[in-house]
């Protein structure tokens, strides 16, 4: 399949791109020194570790560099780096799309498994196809109530559709990198490839600061996300809070590695408190009973749906998970940010 050169150079993941990948893998990347160099340059440029963009000649090179860069980032086994690179790739895609005509969006979208139509002014998509998309839950502009919807079809302006493509693309590449992690962990790499990857990791860590492992620190209540602070305060006042809010607080505190007695302290003023039952329930959530399953802290989109989310300001507008909020607040505090952890503080001091 021969692809239009410019399209494939800009969008090296289009359907059929893999026909240009004959014989390339992370294990033999040192046999392709130019691809290795360009892939390292691309990663560095997109992560803003370098100002020099990779000088890619053609579609074949672009496909190889894209694929190699994903494998190199996967090999780091560093989820933060993977997420950052996914974000950077989606930003690059959005910029490229903005320079193209909306008609070309359909080709890109289709390569990502998105089904849509275009009438020359706006895009349309079946509601069920929209519902199956991944990666679009954190952008208010892409949430269903904000979109025109009639009789099972949603309508999207070129700008909104472009944003949607970039978010789906981010999810696809991050998912690909994360699923490659285990497979590539034991790959035999040449010293040259290893050195390139290690150098990227070192510069990335230096730029971003070391990632905080929240469960290794003593809990800092002032930096808890607003939802945890709010519901904990309500319980402390003796309010009978909803089950979902109790679940949120308990799983969050357990995730910080608090022991059961410490978690119980948060619940002891609730009107229906019974220590024996509460202890049993918390041990169950912590995976210390029954099936041994440890329950996860609900994501922000779940909390919004359940009506347990209490803040849509500041850092919360960008958050997908309460633990992420907490980790970022700690990092901000360590960097001396006095406003860390104060979102929505005025609404419920």
């Amino acid at each position, binding site marked *: 399949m021969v692809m239009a050169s410019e399209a494939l150079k800009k969008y090296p993941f289009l359907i059929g791109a893999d026909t240009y990948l004959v014989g390339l893998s992370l294990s033999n990347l040192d046999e392709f020194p130019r691809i290795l160099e360009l892939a390292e340059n691309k990663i560095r440029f997109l992560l803003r570790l370098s100002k020099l963009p990779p000088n890619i000649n053609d579609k074949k090179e672009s496909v190889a560099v894209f694929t190699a860069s994903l494998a190199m980032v996967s090999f780091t086994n560093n989820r933060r780096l993977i997420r950052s690179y996914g974000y950077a790739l989606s930003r690059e895609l959005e910029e490229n799309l903005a320079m193209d005509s909306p008609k070309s969006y359909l080709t890109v979208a289709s390569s990502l498994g998105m089904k849509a139509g275009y009438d020359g002014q706006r895009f349309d998509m079946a509601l069920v196809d929209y519902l199956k998309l991944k990666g679009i839950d954190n952008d208010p502009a892409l949430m269903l*109530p904000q979109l025109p919807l009639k009789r099972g079809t949603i309508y999207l302006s070129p700008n909104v559709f472009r944003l949607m493509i970039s978010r789906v693309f981010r999810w696809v590449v991050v998912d690909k990198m994360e699923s490659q992690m285990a497979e590539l962990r034991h790959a035999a790499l040449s010293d040259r490839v290893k050195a390139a990857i290690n150098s990227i990791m070192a510069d990335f860590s230096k730029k971003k600061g070391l990632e905080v492992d929240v469960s290794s620190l003593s809990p800092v209540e002032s930096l808890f996300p607003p939802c945890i602070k709010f519901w904990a305060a309500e319980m402390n006042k003796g309010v009978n809070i909803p089950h979902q809010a109790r679940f949120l607080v308990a799983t969050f505190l357990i995730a910080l590695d608090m022991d059961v007695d410490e978690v119980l302290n948060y619940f002891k003023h609730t009107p229906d408190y019974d220590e024996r039952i509460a202890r049993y329930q918390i041990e169950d959530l912590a995976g210390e009973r029954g099936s041994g399953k440890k329950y996860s802290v609900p994501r922000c989109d779940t909390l919004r749906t359940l*009506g347990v989310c209490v803040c849509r300001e500041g850092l919360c507008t960008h958050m997908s998970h309460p633990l992420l909020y907490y980790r970022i607040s700690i990092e901000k505090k360590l960097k001396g940010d006095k406003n860390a952890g104060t979102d929505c503080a005025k609404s419920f001091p």
Partner: protein
Amino acid sequence: MLELPDFTKREFGFLRPDKKEMIRHLAFSDALSLKKYLVALPPSHVYSSTALYERPSEPDMNAKGWIGSEMIFEFDADHMKELRDKPNVKRGVLDNSDWSLVKDRTKHLIYDFLIEDFGLQDKEISINFSGNRGFHVRVRANDYIDLDQDARRRLASYINGADLDVDSVFTRLSARRKVREITFSQPGWMERIRKIMDEKKMSAEDAVKEASLDIDENVLLDLHRLIRHVHTLHAGTGLVVTPISIDGIDSFDPYVHAVVKSDEEVLVKMEHAELFNGLVVGDLIISSDLTGRILRLNRSVAVFLLLKGLAKAIG
């Protein structure tokens, strides 16, 4: 009568009068087999799965082979903020105005959200009277049946307005007229807000509250839920879980149409009749002066009154 589409792919569960634990992971080849089972071992509650499975009787949920799940929306008066604190609702008996509100909310879901916004067809939607305080709306549509929880969460958030960016609506309201016209002529939530604001002279914030529906997300998101099986009795009321056509909901009177026909009569002594003056149950019109009187009633009507504490058995 006990038939449901894809009958053999459903899991059944029962609660027996003498046992607290549910007997579940059962499957039947047809409605007649189910009926024989119910006659042989009468349970107090009969449930069937909203999910369809390759192997519904497999006890390990992971081994059942999930095919998909109907979407279920529950509208129960005791979960509606306007009704849940009313003494009669707490007692489990709704008056005509309560039923009217429950029906309005159910119709709002069906006509405005399911049909107008989601594009579902009438034939893909069915309604059951739950046997107690509300209705179950079931969506059985091929395109929707295999939706995962994330997808269902988006629908729930759409209906309850949780993902509605109200700030953005307010911003658009104060924008130039042209922008406002474009934004508010968009079908879906934006058009709905505009319509309510114009017709009811409400603020955008109140219009959102007016149009959103407080549905129980846990029910919609549960892919393995068991719900009361159609045409079986609710043990808390003695009323039948009754299928209703969409356009038949207005004329459906739960305390008349879901009462089992019975020729048998029993004696009861009426109590607290003054709380439900004018309420019709089966062929009985309750009036205040019935309190303390001994009546010979149709058995099904008597069962309802006994279960709701409105009568005592005689003899």
